[in-house]
Every structure is written in structure tokens, then in C-alpha cells.
């Protein structure tokens, strides 16, 4: 589609719509604040206490996934290209086995609190340091995309300017984003993960309802589904885009950018999503949440997020005077919603959209703050050897730091918008972002989990050498990315926004494999140097030379030939430097941290041999006793029914399923007693589990 001059809108909507939006926001914030009271420590703040049922997490993921910029970006592409706009919602299944039986059990059983922490356990502190930088860039970039989308969604509803004390103040995109960021920051700072999960649960339902309602209104406006369907050209009806054209929306580019880099990135390295799965009561509940979400919720979501664009296209064909083909694609969602929904209803749809977008941003801010606390604050305090008097004082300080970190991350997220706001649409900005930032970490995580031989030298070379080649690819796309382009035409202003993902993955993977296969030579050379008197001096000189090469590539000093040679030098030399300086024991560093040692991970998680004998769930009354707060005690009869032994892990929750595990605890079976149907719990456990007097509890053995 040719867009000569894009038509943009302002002041869409009525007073009724604004009233509905304000009421909706207040209601959502009160709802979130209510659940914020369940935040007692940093574990609750970030992980919600690892207690929730699969259905609750499934729905809360909807608001995170769907809310994240999706309405605006997929409607834009739906208007320009049709049903294929949201095709990438239907690609996550390809990686589900890797996730369910690789990454998910490892992150839960190894008790890591963040992805960089996994890198330290699996590789080394230096790998963690680099992973932290990359992950923070990824998360802050994601927050920036979220804010950009929020701004673009809200701008059409705002006037071009407002007058205050006789001065006309123009409303700009950045201005709107700053105001939105302040509201978002206030909410997340005082809520925490439990508040976010429950707010997202509510919003997940509202979002799906609002999106489907919009589709219904659109079909009704057009006169029925047959009319809508027949108005669309064949190309708009096809579920997948054209293989390699146009440059700004083609199947193969989007497959690599979104289906591969984006989906793996979202499932494996989006700390916000990972924390949702970690908030599940068990690994199996996490698997159920992932399966139901991908199998059934995502196809519905694909309709929900794209339909405004499809309806907009149909209206633009039937009535070009109502919707011009030149309408700004990023505004099409708001324009269509305003046309087909009545006043008030439009406000509701916009409130659902913006609130859901805020949920996404909230989740990401919370997750990024978690990374900051876990991977920056704690290591720095440890390094500075700062003593803290008590455990409760430590918790109080960390919770405070987490809240300040949330504010800092919000500010950085707003600044990140500057990097993306000049792309023609949010879709292209997001595509470029996925293609560029995810490959090194995705390769690092993947090989770390599934390849025992993958060493610190491998992962650090992937990060440093892979990124050096990625920088060169970005600088010389016509030479380096072109061989991977599948016939896609290179857009000069934004070259290979999507298919660069393939190049970036290939170079990172290639560097990783090369570093691992040359490991014996590295070890041999390093061992010779270690036995030489001036070995350390030689390695320090080599490290300095590697830094020089990195500077050469990063700052574009020298011709392309020299830069390529410099990148190759980095790839060859970094493994030697890492092998020399980093302590690594393959057996110790892979135990319980790779897919091949899940059994070890489970033993570590339980601190003993797992009991996999299948037992039944039991329903019990609780009785408060004074005693060991580390265990709960069941009767001999109940223990036999659950096939449990003292020392096994138990999950104890309020019997009411609809609570989704909100009132629950994890504990350990203590020595049995002889009072059937009763569990002995301490006051502290009752407080943590929020157990209500007289309410029956459901107990199940975990392992």
C-alpha cells in the first residue's frame, strides 16, 4: 500500500469516554492496591510467593502478552496487510518442548531468581555480568516499546494542545509518555508481583472481551461476516504474509524476527514472563499454564489484537470517506474503535487497551527491578562487604531498594523511547528490537541448557564476538546480511529490520560452536602459559589487545576489511583469555543446571531424594500449634494417602479453587501425629498462607 501523506487524528472520543477511562483506571488501581497488601518480602514482591494455580497464571499472561503493544502494532499491520498481521501469535508451539522440559524446570529447581544468576551458576560471575547488561538492555528496550505504544494509543484521544494560565502548551508524544510513565511507576512501586498478577488476571479477561466485542461491533457495522469477508482482497485473507515482499512486512523476515528470535526471547529471556511461571505453585502447573495459553488463548488473542486493522481495511474499501487508506497505521485501532463503538463503549475499549499496556509495562518494570536487586544490588553489597544487622532489616532495605529501582527503570524506559520513535510503525521498531537484542542471550541460554560442553569461554565469546559481528552486520548490511536475505529487498533507511535476526542468530551460534570445538587447543595453550613465569603478563597483554580490537569494531575505526579481521581476532582470542582467567569445573557447573541433569536439580530443590510415588490429595482442617515453623504435621492416615514421608515437600492451600492459590504455603512434611483430618501449622505459617479460621485446606505432596 502506498502512503503519500499519513492522516493523523486528535481529540477523538467524548467526555463520556474520558469519564469511563478515569473510572476504569481508578478501579484497576484499587484492585491492584488491595492485592499489594500480600507483599511481605522481596520474594512476594517479585515472585508472588510461588503459590498460584495454572489458570490464574494463564490469564495473567494474557494481559502481559496481548497488552504488550499488540493492539496498536498488529492492528496497524492488519490494516496494511490483513489477517497475516498477527500470524506470529501462532508460532510459539515449535519451542514448547525446550521450554517445558528444559528451561522451566531448571529455573525453578535451581532456585535462581533471575536469568543472569543462572549464568553465574552455570558459567561464571563474568558471564553473569555480561548477561546482566544484555538483559537490562533488552528489558529496558521492551519497556521503551511499551511506553511508545501507550503514547501512540493515547495521542489520538488528546487535543493538539491545551491552554494553561493563558499559555498554549502543545501535547507531544514524549510529553504524553512522561505522564503515563509517572502513573505506571506509582502503581508498580506500591504493588509488587502479587498485585500485578491479580490486576493482570482481571485485565486478561477484560482485554479478550473488549477485543472480541470490537470485532463484533465491526462486523455488525459492515453488515455481517459475509460482507466483511468478501470485502477483503485474497491477500488480506491469507494467514501468512507473502514470502519475501514487501521489505516492511514479509513472511520469512517476520518468521526469523518474531517467530524465532521474538518467541524464544519472550519464552526464555523475558524476565517478566519467567517470573509469572516462577509464581506457579509447581513446575507442572507452569507447563499447564504455558500449554493452555499457547494452544487456546493465543489464537483468540490473534483475533483480538488484529481485528481492528482488518475491519478498518474492509471499511476503507466499502466507505473510503469514512476511513481513508492514508490513515496512520499506528492510529487505526483508535480510529476504528471510535467509529464502530458508541460513546462510553469506546472509552471502555480504550481504557482496557491502555490499562493492559500499563500492565505489560508494570510487569517489565517489576522484572527489571528484580534483575537490578539480584544481579546488581546484592553482588555490589557483597563486594563492598556491607554488614546488615538482621535478616528482617535486610528484607526491609531490599524492598526499599526494589521500589527505588522500579522508579529508576521507569525513567530509563522513557528514555529508551527515543531509540524507537523514528520507526514508521511500532511493529517495525519492535521487529528491529527483537532482531538485534535477543540473539546473543537466546543462544547463550539455549546452549547453556542443552549442551554440557558449552563453557564460559563459549558463552563469553558468543556475547563479545557475536555482538562484534552483529555490529558489523548493522554497519554493512548490504555485504554481511544480504546473503541471508531470502530475496528481500533492502530498505535503505531501515535495512533488513527483520531478517537481520537470522544473520545475528547464525553468527552468535557459529561463534559459540567454534569456541567450544576449539576448547582443547585453548586448554592446551593456557596450560602452557600457566606454567611459564611470564604467562600472566602475556595474558594481560593479550587482554589489552582484545580490548583494542573491541574498541576498533565498536567505534568504527578502520576499513571494513580491518574491522572484519578485528572481529575474527576477538572470536579467536577471547576464549584463550576466558579459559586463562575463569575457574570452571564442568561437573560442578552443570550439575542440576542443564536439561541432562534435571534429576540433580530436583534433588537440590528438595534437599533430598524426590519421592515420585503418586499419592492422593487430602482435605484437612488446620490447628495452630507452637513448634518448628519449617514443617507442617499431618496424621499417619493422611500421610499414607498422600504416599508422603517426613522430609517430603508439601503444598497446602485453601480448598476454594477460585482463589487460585492466593491463600497457600509450601512446606515440608514433619513427623506424623494421630489426629486424622487435621494438619498442625504454626502461627507464622497461618499468617504467610493467609489461612482463614474454619476453612478447609487442600494438601498435596510435591515430591
Amino acid at each position, binding site marked *: 500500500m502506498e502512503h503519500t501523506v499519513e492522516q493523523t487524528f486528535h481529540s477523538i472520543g467524548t467526555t463520556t469516554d474520558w469519564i469511563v477511562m478515569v473510572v476504569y483506571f481508578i478501579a484497576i488501581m484499587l484492585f491492584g492496591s488491595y492485592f499489594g497488601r500480600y507483599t511481605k518480602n522481596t520474594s512476594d514482591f517479585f515472585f508472588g510467593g510461588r503459590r498460584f494455580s495454572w489458570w490464574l497464571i494463564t490469564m495473567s499472561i494474557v494481559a502481559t502478552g496481548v497488552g504488550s503493544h499488540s493492539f496498536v502494532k498488529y492492528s496497524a499491520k492488519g490494516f496494511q496487510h490483513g489477517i497475516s498481521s498477527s500470524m506470529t501469535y501462532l508460532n510459539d508451539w515449535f519451542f514448547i*518442548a525446550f521450554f517445558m522440559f*528444559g528451561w522451566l524446570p531448571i529455573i525453578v529447581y535451581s532456585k535462581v531468581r533471575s536469568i543472569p544468576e543462572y549464568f553465574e551458576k552455570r558459567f561464571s560471575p563474568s558471564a553473569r555480568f555480561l548477561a546482566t547488561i544484555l538483559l537490562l538492555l533488552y528489558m529496558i528496550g521492551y519497556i521503551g516499546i511499551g511506553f511508545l505504544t501507550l503514547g501512540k494509543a493515547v495521542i489520538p484521544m488528546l487535543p493538539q494542545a491545551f491552554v494553561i494560565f493563558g499559555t498554549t502548551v502543545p501535547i507531544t508524544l514524549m510529553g504524553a509518555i512522561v505522564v503515563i510513565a509517572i502513573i505506571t511507576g506509582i502503581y508498580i512501586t506500591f504493588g509488587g508481583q502479587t498485585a500485578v498478577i491479580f490486576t493482570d488476571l482481571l485485565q486478561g479477561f477484560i482485554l479478550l472481551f473488549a477485543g472480541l466485542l470490537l470485532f463484533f461491533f465491526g462486523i455488525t457495522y459492515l453488515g455481517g461476516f459475509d460482507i466483511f469477508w468478501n470485502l477483503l482482497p*485474497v491477500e488480506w485473507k*491469507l494467514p501468512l504474509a507473502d514470502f519475501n515482499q514487501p521489505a516492511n512486512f514479509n513472511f520469512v523476515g517476520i*518468521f526469523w524476527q518474531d517467530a524465532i528470535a521474538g518467541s524464544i526471547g519472550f519464552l526464555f529471556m523475558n524476565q517478566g514472563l519467567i517470573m509469572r511461571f516462577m509464581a506457579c505453585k509447581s513446575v507442572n502447573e507452569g507447563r499447564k499454564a504455558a500449554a493452555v495459553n499457547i494452544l487456546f488463548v493465543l489464537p483468540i488473542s490473534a483475533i483480538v489484537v488484529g481485528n481492528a486493522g482488518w475491519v478498518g481495511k474492509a471499511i476503507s474499501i466499502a466507505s473510503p470517506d469514512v476511513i481513508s487508506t492514508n490513515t496512520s497505521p499506528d492510529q487505526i485501532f483508535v480510529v476504528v474503535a471510535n467509529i464502530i463503538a458508541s460513546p462510553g463503549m469506546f472509552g471502555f475499549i480504550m481504557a482496557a487497551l491502555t490499562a493492559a499496556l500499563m500492565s505489560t509495562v508494570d510487569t517489565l518494570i517489576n522484572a527489571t527491578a528484580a534483575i537490578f536487586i539480584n544481579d546488581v544490588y546484592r553482588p555490589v553489597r557483597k563486594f563492598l562487604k556491607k554488614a546488615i544487622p538482621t535478616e528482617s532489616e535486610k528484607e526491609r532495605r531490599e524492598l526499599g531498594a526494589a521500589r527505588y529501582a522500579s522508579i529508576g527503570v521507569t525513567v530509563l524506559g522513557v528514555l529508551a523511547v527515543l531509540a524507537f520513535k523514528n520507526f514508521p510503525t511500532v511493529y517495525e521498531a519492535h521487529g528491529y528490537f527483537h532482531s538485534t537484542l535477543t540473539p546473543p542471550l537466546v543462544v547463550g541460554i539455549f546452549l547453556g541448557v*542443552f549442551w554440557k560442553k558449552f563453557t564460559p569461554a563459549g558463552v563469553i565469546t558468543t556475547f563479545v564476538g557475536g555482538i562484534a559481528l552483529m555490529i558489523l552486520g548493522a554497519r554493512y548490511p548490504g555485504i554481511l546480511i544480504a546473503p541471508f536475505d531470502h530475496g528481500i529487498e533492502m530498505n535503505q533507511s531501515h535495512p533488513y529490520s527483520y531478517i537481520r535476526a537470522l544473520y545475528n542468530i547464525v553468527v552468535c551460534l557459529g561463534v559459540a560452536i567454534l569456541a567450544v570445538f576449539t576448547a582443547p587447543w585453548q586448554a592446551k595453550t593456557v596450560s602452557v602459559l600457566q606454567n611459564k613465569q611470564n604467562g600472566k603478563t602475556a595474558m594481560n597483554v593479550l587482554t589489552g589487545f582484545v580490548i583494542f580490537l573491541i574498541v576498533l569494531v565498536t567505534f568504527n575505526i578502520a576499513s571494513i576489511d580491518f574491522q572484519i579481521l578485528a572481529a575474527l581476532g576477538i572470536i579467536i582470542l577471547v576464549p584463550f583469555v576466558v579459559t586463562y582467567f575463569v575457574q570452571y569445573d564442568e561437573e560442578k557447573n552443570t550439575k542440576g543446571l542443564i536439561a541432562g541433569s534435571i534429576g540433580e536439580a530436583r534433588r537440590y530443590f528438595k534437599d533430598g531424594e524426590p519421592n515420585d510415588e*503418586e499419592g492422593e490429595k487430602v482435605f484437612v482442617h488446620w490447628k495452630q500449634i507452637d513448634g518448628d515453623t519449617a514443617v507442617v504435621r499431618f496424621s499417619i492416615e493422611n500421610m499414607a494417602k498422600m504416599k508422603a514421608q517426613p522430609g517430603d515437600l508439601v503444598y497446602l492451600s485453601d480448598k476454594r479453587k477460585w482463589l487460585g492459590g492466593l491463600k497457600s504455603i509450601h512446606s515440608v512434611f514433619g513427623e506424623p501425629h494421630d489426629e486424622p483430618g487435621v494438619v498442625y501449622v504454626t502461627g507464622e505459617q497461618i499468617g504467610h498462607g493467609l489461612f482463614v479460621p474454619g476453612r478447609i485446606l487442600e494438601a498435596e505432596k510435591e515430591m
Partner: protein
Amino acid sequence: MDLFSHSWLPFIYLYGLGGFLFVFGIIITLKAGSFDLRRYSHKKWMWVLVFGFVWYLAMHFLMTLAALDMISVYAVPIILLLLAVVFIIVTVILRKK
């Protein structure tokens, strides 16, 4: 108008390469032992995994046929609904075993 590059070519690429990645994921996790078919609960997951792949393949296949006017667009949700019912029934049976 030749729509092959807009219909079946991306379909073949998606399920060829995607299918390879999917099978590769299953094989790797099986070999690693984290996906263990000796455990009954994991056997149930194998059913879910295979169904999921067929479910998405059917979805894209039917939508492409409908777009090309080879079947009625209304057949898409009906067939998918039937598949979903089969999934629920089999899953419930496996759960009760």
C-alpha cells in the same frame, strides 16, 4: 494471480523448519532425560505436544484453504472446534487412567 509465494510457500517453510525445530526439541529433551516417557505424566504431555503441532498445522492449512476460496470460511472454526473437543476428551480420559 499466482499466490503460491503468499500461501503455500510460507506454509511449507513454516511447518518444514518449524516442524524440524519442534521434533528436535522433543528429541533433545528425551535424550537429556528431562522429558521421560517412562513417567506416565510425561506420556500425557507427549500427547499434548503432538496435538498442539497438529492443531496449529490444521489451523493454518484450513485458513489458507478458506482464503483461497477452496472451502467455506465457516468450516474453519467448525473443524477446529471438533479438534478441540477431541483434545479435551482424550486428555480427560488420560487423566482418569
